């Protein structure tokens, strides 16, 4: 059914149509509306045969999901930012044990400084946890990816994270096609666990493994995740034939065929980028963009193939590996090694800074002119940075950066006391 609704409510309704049996969550902005929506659906009885477990923390949320999944039920949770970090230890366990939990991450920055706005620092920090990571470009794709994620996770017996830009998507009201229950039911069969805790047939899920087999268990985890590179396109194609629209997959190529300059990005900024690409194409410039829909497993061959004709690549990313630079760019570079194609990192949209078409156009003009450094921070306020650096040189006790810069901006009224 075609509806105009908030992203979070659309995700909640879709997750409900996937018939989860256990939902355990702890609220955190900007994830809150999703789990509020689901708890209302459980309470009203609209979502049947499902237990909503109120937990005291994100660590507990993931731990309950692990228990529920090991007991053979379809388990779901959602979180963001500090919440994701707080469940990190359990996250590795869910993946290591091979439990097909599905989780929404409403992407948000990580503190300090505390910041509730969107970027990808949270999910990127867990990229090596063993979870599959899918990134949604729009609310329609967020809906569709959840349905695909349950099927994928259960098929491979691996947990999957659906990353949805916090606020930008979760709090946006857009037109979405909500899939009918019958459609979801025919795409997503009942959960048939590969391993289950059953007193009649006792097994240990989580046996201690020493040096004699640890490498092999890890190898299998990698092997299984790499299988997703075949499973995801197959599922996306099956999804398209049963739901009548393309969603997900490994990559989305947008006007890249003859593009000299290709921008690689993930998440909601892709829509803005596609608009910019269209504008520049009208001006006769050969520009395209490549959307990464699956970040883990990394579709290295497909990315390298999609970029092989480019003269220059810009990776636009909403996270920063401090001390290195771009995380996505590092992955892209590994596939283009030896190709001679320059790959530039552009860090953008940190902590909710808007990524505007105007800034993107300016950035792409710099890139085309060959004036881009290896790593660039989009719209960096160099004046703010310079003033703070001067203060640190002028005084050994110059104080906290964050407050000093807020004072420069007039956002903190108080002076030294």
């Amino acid at each position, binding site marked *: 059914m075609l509806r*105009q609704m*908030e992203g979070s409510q659309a995700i909640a309704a879709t997750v409900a149509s996937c018939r989860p049996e256990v939902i355990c969550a702890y609220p955190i902005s*900007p994830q809150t509306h999703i789990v509020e929506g689901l708890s209302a659906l459980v309470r009203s009885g609209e979502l049947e045969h499902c237990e909503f477990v109120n937990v005291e923390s994100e660590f507990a949320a993931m731990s309950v999901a692990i228990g529920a999944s090991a007991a053979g039920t379809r388990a779901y949770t959602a979180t963001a930012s500090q919440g994701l970090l707080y469940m990190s230890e359990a996250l590795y366990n869910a993946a290591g044990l091979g439990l097909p939990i599905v989780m929404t991450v409403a992407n948000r920055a990580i503190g300090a400084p505390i910041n*509730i*706005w*969107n970027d990808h620092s949270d999910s990127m920090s867990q990229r090596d946890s063993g979870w599959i990571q899918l990134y949604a470009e*729009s609310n329609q794709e967020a809906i569709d990816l959840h349905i695909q994620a349950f099927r994928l996770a259960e098929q491979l017996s691996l947990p999957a994270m659906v990353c949805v*830009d916090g*606020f*930008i*998507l979760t*709090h*946006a*009201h*857009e*037109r979405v096609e909500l899939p009918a229950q019958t459609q979801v039911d025919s795409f997503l069969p009942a959960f048939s666990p590969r391993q289950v805790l059953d007193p009649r047939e006792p097994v240990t899920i989580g046996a201690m493994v020493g040096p004699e087999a640890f490498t092999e268990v890890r190898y299998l985890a990698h092997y299984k995740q790499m299988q997703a590179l075949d499973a995801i396109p197959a599922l996306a194609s099956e999804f398209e034939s049963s739901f009548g629209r393309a969603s997900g997959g490994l990559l989305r190529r947008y006007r890249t065929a003859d593009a000299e300059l290709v921008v690689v990005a993930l998440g*909601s*900024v*892709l*829509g*803005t980028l*596609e*608009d910019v690409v269209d504008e520049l194409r009208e001006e006769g410039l050969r520009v395209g963009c490549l959307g990464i829909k699956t970040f883990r497993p990394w579709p290295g061959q497909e990315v390298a193939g999609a970029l092989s004709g480019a003269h220059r690549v810009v990776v636009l990313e909403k996270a920063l590996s401090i001390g290195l630079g771009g995380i996505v760019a590092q992955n892209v570079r590994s596939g283009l090694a030896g190709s001679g194609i320059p790959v530039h990192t552009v860090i953008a949209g940190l902590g*909710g800074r*808007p*990524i*505007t*078409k*105007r800034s993107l156009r300016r950035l792409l003009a710099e890139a085309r002119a060959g004036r881009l450094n290896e790593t660039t921070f989009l719209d960096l306020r160099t004046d703010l940075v310079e003033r703070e650096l001067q203060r640190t040189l002028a005084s050994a006790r110059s104080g906290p950066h964050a407050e000093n810069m807020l004072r420069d901006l007039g956002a903190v009224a108080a002076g030294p006391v």
Partner: protein
Amino acid sequence: MFEVRIHGRGGQGVVTAAELLSVAAFLEGRHAQAFPSFGSERTGAPVVSFCRIDERPIRTHEPIVAPDALIVVDPTLLHQVDVFGGLEPDGWVLMNSSRSLEELQLTPLRERSSHPERLVSVPASQIAREALGRPLPNAALLGAFAALTSAVSLSSVLAAIRGRFSEETAEGNVVAAERAFAAVRGPAAALEASRA
């Protein structure tokens, strides 16, 4: 693409207003995107929400920087926030005030506009107080907005209101929207529009 920015304060329903506007456009078979300015919500703090309306799917997710229309729910913001920032020279401005634009010292704004008739003030809070018993000006402003811009029809606004609120609340808001529409276009046009 028609882009609207709404300025108000936390608790005045600024986010709901953008949502309702997007639903009204959706009901006309068009594409719409409504979103709030994201922050730590506090009652009384300045709040901004946005709505885009287009005939084509809307892909961009940048904030609206050059709006075609502004709705100012709380005129006290004029002294606090750059509410007119980025407004297109031929843009529409709808002020919620029982005072005229001249009384609000907005004559220079009108002089700068290429279409001064697109700048109006409507006593939406007063209309809401009479229709609802509470000074919640959202619905009235959307009715006036439909009258001023024709970006959406009054009947779509009324349908969006009826779809969002319980019957009793909806009816008061419907009356407020109709009266505000009439305040801009006249009672005869309002009667015709609400039956459309």
